[in-house]
């Protein structure tokens, strides 16, 4: 079995510094290429993941309740507080004083927190004190870190 991967470009080695432009065509004598008007910049992974720095926070995942959504223990979660907690989105939410990551689901008039692991039951939010903290946009999972 093979996976298709395509190379996107160079990673920005100086995080949060101003990326230097890379020229897309080799320098040639003669007429300038019209394509050079459009310079490629180094790819900044931080910018790719963090759309709104002011409202974006990182959190650390613990446990296996969201393993079906590829959230492993120790993974880094990118959480954006500016996004609306729509049903279907994975959120960081404070329930009865504890911070948890789960998928929001709406069944009829009721809202549930759903894990993506059959060993965890859905948690109805009715009658519990809860407050959405932010919406999880990305998971950063390191493949070299030894799994427990």
């Amino acid at each position: 079995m093979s996976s298709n991967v395509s190379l996107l470009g160079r990673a920005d080695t100086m995080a949060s510094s101003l990326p230097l432009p890379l020229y897309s065509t080799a320098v040639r004598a003669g007429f300038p290429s019209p394509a050079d008007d459009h310079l490629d910049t180094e790819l900044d992974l931080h910018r790719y993941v963090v759309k709104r720095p002011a409202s974006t926070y990182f959190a650390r995942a613990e446990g296996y309740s969201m393993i079906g959504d590829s959230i492993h223990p120790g993974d880094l979660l990118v959480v954006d507080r500016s996004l609306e907690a729509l049903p279907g989105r994975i959120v960081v939410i404070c329930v009865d004083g504890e911070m948890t990551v789960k998928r929001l689901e709406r069944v009829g008039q009721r809202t549930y927190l759903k894990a993506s692991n059959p060993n965890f039951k859905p948690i109805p939010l009715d009658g519990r004190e809860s407050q959405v903290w932010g919406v999880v946009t990305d998971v950063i999972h390191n493949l070299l870190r030894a799994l427990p």
Partner: protein
Amino acid sequence: MIALVDCNNFYVSCERVFDPMLEGRPVGVLSNNDGCVVARSNELKALGVEMGTAMHLLPPAIRRQAVLLSSNYALYGDMSQRVTEVLGEFSPHVEVYSIDESFVGFQGFDPDSLEARGQAMRDTVRQWTGIPVCVGFAPTRVLAKVANQAAKKHPAYKQHGVCKLTADSEATKALLKQLPVTELWGVARRTGERLSVMGIDTAWDLREADAKRIRQRFSVVQERIVWELRGQSAIQLDDMSLPKKQIMVSRSFGRLTGNPHDLREALRHHAARAAEKLRKQQSVTSAVMVFLRTNPFRTDLPQYQQRVVVSLERPTDDSRDIIASAVQGLRRLWRKGYAYHKAGLMLLDLSPKANRQLTLTETPQTDEEAKRSERLMATMDKLNRELGKGTVQLGLPRKGNAWALRSERRTPRYTTQWNELLVVK
């Protein structure tokens, strides 16, 4: 119109964003090492705990009920930056006035739209950062400060947390008549006593006073307050810093500069001046906030504005410690490729020097010793300059000594350390 946006109980609010269990409980934040209360939740205020109270003087009953935390300046600095960034979505004119207050200019906006904008600003800051803020609109900074206080405390405004004052409305008049002149921004207590002798007790009295006479008796700055109360803008931010509570020194550069040496020189100079001011009012500071920004009006250039809070090892009024923190802050802030317009620093959480206790590891310095250590500093700086940064360093406190123990109540640095992030199950 200009808005003053002020974060409610800022340090405590920052702590509550990451630990919702603190909601509704009396929470206090302690200054570094000496254990004075520098921030209080409303619940702690209700228990009668005053600002600046030394922790060991708190009654045991209160100590049992309250959550007392060591200050987490890395977190507060980062959250402060985020709040400012959100405000930048509403207007290009955002001026940082303290770690938890900013002035936001709304020149040219429809005055009737401002209350709705204020509400939106408040809601957005709350959603993006979790920090509750109050917003006061007025034609001048001094009145904006009054409007902000009303937004926070006055029954007519506090439900919405937004208050707009025009220069001549009945509402403005009523508020100014209730406000003791000493509670006005920029009026020191001693000035207040002298004003009282002249029959000026409230902010309204001062507004109605003869401006010329105020200048003759006091100063140009006091006269400007009179104009500001009347709704005529007269004060630049650099003229004013809240006496006793914080010290800010900042200047715009004559020309834009990307040179780190220029920035360092400017910050060293500002730090030295701030330290002088600090000693003059016989206070010590717990942390230094350093900030740096490009010119927001040069939209043709890449923009950058950032701040960082460097906490001091112990409360101090020593120029060397303050300058060193400023330079350390700059090292963390400076980025290549920007033309900087302004640099400055702010001394946070001042407390009277007299109250301050020596920590276990300290001994008092004599004049002779102080002079000797100054010579030592100069030599050290020279070596570091000529042989490279860090050639000679002062001994750093070891882990586990008295000082390190003193910050054991600090919460994780949720937003600035990879190994201290918020954990979610």
